[in-house]
Every structure is written in structure tokens, then in C-alpha cells.
């Protein structure tokens, strides 16, 4: 990527950008990896994020951002290949293994991650976490589903309404 000035002077190396988390931690990362985010891509194309400037991300804390960047760095080469028609089966299997392990994390981290992926518009990461959460609620009772998705227990009125719908969908509970 031939930017007029290449970040903090790593001549010949890939262009770097700096991202700043909500708790003011600075992350230096290759522009290609950060560009997996649709939101960041435009700023980066405009030459933003280089040098001492950095791009502030007021909605993402450092723990979440470091996890997001771990994903982006791993997926950037395949994304650069345009979905990687020439990726080998080995490469694809390795990415799949990485993905499976990557979402094998605490639920609260998972939720911060999907919110960040949504804000930053990182499609692959959104999809990966959404699939993981969909698997987590599989086979659970309605009350467990609520709790898993961070919803407080229902009021008596809501409970009554839910009970009526449960009878309507009796087949779903057999």
C-alpha cells in the first residue's frame, strides 16, 4: 500500500496504523489488518491513523480491542486474497481451527466482542460470534435463553403472555 508517508518510518515494511482504545491504550497494527473493519477502512484509505495521530475508538476497551485485532491479524492475509481462491485446504483448515478456538471464551468477552465487531463492521467476526451464540442457546429453555442473552427475568405480565405463545408452539417443546 503506497501511502505518501508510511506511518512511523518503517520504510519498506507494511504500513502501520495506531488505534486507541476507550481506556487510552495504543495499539499499532498493520493497515491491512485494521482495514477488515469497514468503519476503519475509509479513515485508513484517507491516510488516517498513521504517525502520532492514532484513531480513537471510544466504544471499545483495550481487552476487547486486543482480541479483535488478534482476529484481524489472523484473517488479513486471506481477506487480501479476496476470499482466497488460491488458499490451500491446509490454510483454510488452519483458519477454521483458529476460529473455533478463538470463540471458546468467557461469555462476557464474547458479548463485548460481538458489540465491537458490530460497531467496527467486521463482517467475518460478527458472523463467527453470532454463530457461536446461536449454538450456545441451542436446546435451552426460554428462561435460560433470556439469561444467556442478558435479559432480566420477565414481569408477571410478560410471563403470562409468553406462556400463551408457548402453548401455541407446543410442537417446539416436544
Amino acid at each position, binding site marked *: 500500500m503506497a501511502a505518501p508517508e508510511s506511518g512511523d518510518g518503517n520504510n519498506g515494511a507494511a504500513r502501520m496504523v495506531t488505534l486507541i482504545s476507550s481506556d487510552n491504550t495504543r495499539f499499532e497494527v498493520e493497515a491491512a489488518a485494521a482495514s477488515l473493519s469497514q468503519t476503519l477502512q475509509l479513515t485508513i484509505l484517507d491516510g488516517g491513523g498513521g504517525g502520532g495521530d492514532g484513531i480513537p475508538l471510544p466504544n471499545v476497551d483495550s481487552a476487547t480491542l486486543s482480541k479483535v485485532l488478534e482476529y484481524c491479524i489472523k484473517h488479513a492475509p486471506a481477506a487480501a486474497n479476496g476470499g482466497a481462491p488460491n488458499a490451500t485446504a491446509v490454510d483454510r483448515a488452519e483458519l477454521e481451527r483458529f476460529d473455533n478456538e478463538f470463540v471458546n471464551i468467557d461469555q462476557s468477552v464474547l458479548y463485548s466482542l460481538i458489540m465491537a465487531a*458490530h460497531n467496527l463492521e467486521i463482517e467475518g467476526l460478527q458472523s463467527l460470534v*453470532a454463530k457461536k451464540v446461536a449454538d450456545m442457546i441451542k436446546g*435451552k429453555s426460554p428462561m435460560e*435463553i433470556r439469561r444467556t442473552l442478558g435479559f432480566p427475568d*420477565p414481569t408477571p405480565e410478560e410471563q403470562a403472555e409468553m406462556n400463551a405463545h408457548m402453548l401455541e408452539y*407446543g*410442537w417446539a*417443546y416436544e
Partner: protein
Amino acid sequence: MAAPPPSDEETPPPVLEATLLPRLPDEILELIFLRVTSYAELARISTASTSFRRLILAPSFLRRHRARHPPLLLGTICCHFHPAEQPHPGARIGGSLVHLAAFSFNNYIPRGRWSRWDCRDIRDGRFLLMCDSRDWRRFVFPDLAVYDPLSKRYRLLPLVPDSLIASAQLQMNKIQHLEVLLVSSSGHTEEEEKSFQVIARTHGTERTVIFVFSSNTGHWIFGASIAWDDLRAAGLNLAPATPTGSLSLNYAQYDDHSSIYWKLDGSDNVLKFDVNEMEFSTMNLPPDHTRQSVAIFKAGEGRLAMFSHTPYTAYVNHYTIMQNGGGSATAEWQLENVIPLPCNCTFIGALQGYVFLLGYCHSKEETLVGMALYSLEVKTLKLERVHGMQNLDHGQSQHAYGSWLFS
């Protein structure tokens, strides 16, 4: 039907964990629910919270979910609903629909001019019903209705106006029978999604004529007309006409909201009606297809898929072809697979993404010991037994009923 397990009193909730988690916003919940593949699962989620229910039943969500997941085959309709049987994946839901939905449509819609309504087609969970005079000597346009068994809502169609019949230069005494098909709109908005078209094809001694009803306008219009002699003049190698002078067309197959295909009996050709352009054309089949039944589907990436079957044999040939505008002779059908069947079968129909076969199970002594309906999924080529068949059902037209539910 067992009531769902009441779960709030018994299990002490992991309160701490639950209250620490952020409540996920709607757009994130949608991303998650879109990836739920099981319909039972989606139904359970919709009963967990009023906000989940609102999200899941929103037409915009259902459209996106449908675009990702095929309908679930639940059973078939001839004179009654026959649910899929275990271990078919639609068996549980299909079984409970017997009680839930109003499949006995004759109880729910007013009588037509003659005795009873019969189901003639099913598409997107809606039935196309017909009530006809059953008078073989004199053709009369039947009453038609479109009915949704889940909502019990119906719409009676107006008659095809005499002026329209006259303008199509169609003489009633030359019509032998009428075939009707339901075509759903492939629209992207809620309005477009609920709209439908009914294709009525008159089959006569000299020609076949199509009239099209649109739910949006509420009117019938002339679709297209083609004379048997024109097909012969176009050089098609057609079988001799029946004693009455008409050609025999095999049942129609259509899948993609835009084209309907009829196999021309005794020939290597199909007759195609383009619903958007409102015109007929013909398409060549591979050689030696005079006796075969075929079902044609859109296969993605500009290809068509065709399933071709010789009646009373135990295999299906799967072909594909590159689709091109004018149906030119350059593209050739490619044989992709030969799919073995568990017994000798006949084709009996197709529904969004499935071909249906009636299987005849014979004993070693070659006596018929039972019949069963099989579905072949177009995308995965997966063959599944839907349900057994009574001898009684044999010979009556069967219509597969599948649904995305929540429609």
C-alpha cells in the same frame, strides 16, 4: 400437546452472571437469530421474551431468515394432510400441524358453484384450490381460491372474463381441461412477498393458452398462446397427437418464480413459459428423453439443474446446463450424477427445492408390499422417506406441503 416446562420457579437462576451480562441490542440479537437453523429452536426463542418475538416475527427478519434456510417439508396434501413420518426432520412439526392448522379447507371457505374444493397446488405454504363442474362434455371455467391454512385466510379469484377468452381466439368447445399453478412473488418488501400470481393454462385440441391472475391488480390478463401445429412447424419431433388432436404434456415443474416447464410427451423437448416476459419457448433435452419425466430447477451461478427419471426405475439422472438468454443450441446438458433410489419410483411433483417420488416396494416374489413418498433435495441431493402411502392415496394428486413457518 405437552405444555412447555415452566422453568422460572424450579431452577435457581445464575443471577450474578445474568445481571453482569450486557443486554444485547436488537441488531445483535438479529444477527444471532438469523443463524438459528432449527425452526423449533426459533419458535422456542420467540416465546422467551416479547422483544424476541417481535424481532423474529418482523417481516424483514423472516425474509432474511428465509433467504438463508430452505423450507421444512412437513407433509403432503391430497384430500387430507398427511404429516411426514419419523425419522424425517419435518415429522415432529408436521405431526402437530394436523391439529393446529386448518387443512380441511372445505370447512373454512364458502362453497363454490359445484360441490367441493380440491387442492391443485401449494407454494410458500399457500394452497391453490379449485372447484369445478366435472362435466367432461362441456368445459366451464372453474372457481378458484387461494388459501392459507395457518391464518385460515382465503381469497376467492374472479372468473376469467368472457371478453378475455374471446380476445384469445379461444373456443370453449375446443378446451379439454385446465391446469392451474400458483406462483409466489420473489419480492423483497412485505407487500411484494404476500402477492401471488395464478397461471391458468387451458389445454385444447388445437392450442394451449395461458391466462395470468395477479393479486396486485385483482385481474386476469392474457399470458401467451401456442398452437400444436406451430410446435410441429418449428421442427420439433413430437409424438403423434392424441385421437382428439391435442398433444400430451407432462406435469409442470417450476421452482424459481419465473419459469414453468412442461415436458412434451414422446419428445426430447420441454415447453417453457417465462412468467415475466409472458412468452413460450422450447428447450432441448439430452437425447433419448422421449419417455422420461423431468424436473427443472435454477441451480445458481447461471445454471439450471434437471432431474430426469424413467418411470418405474430405481435411479434418477442429475444434469446441469448453462442458462442462456435465447435457449441456443450451444449449451449442452452435462450429466453430473446418477442417484440410486431405494426402489422403483415415479415422479409425482416438485416443491421449492425438492423433487417428490412415489416408491413401490416389492417383495422377493415381486408382489407389491407397500408404497412410500420420497423427497430428493435439489441442493444436497439428499433422499429422504417422507411417509408411507395407502393404496387408497395412489392415483390421487399429492401436493407436498412445506413451510418456513411463522409466515
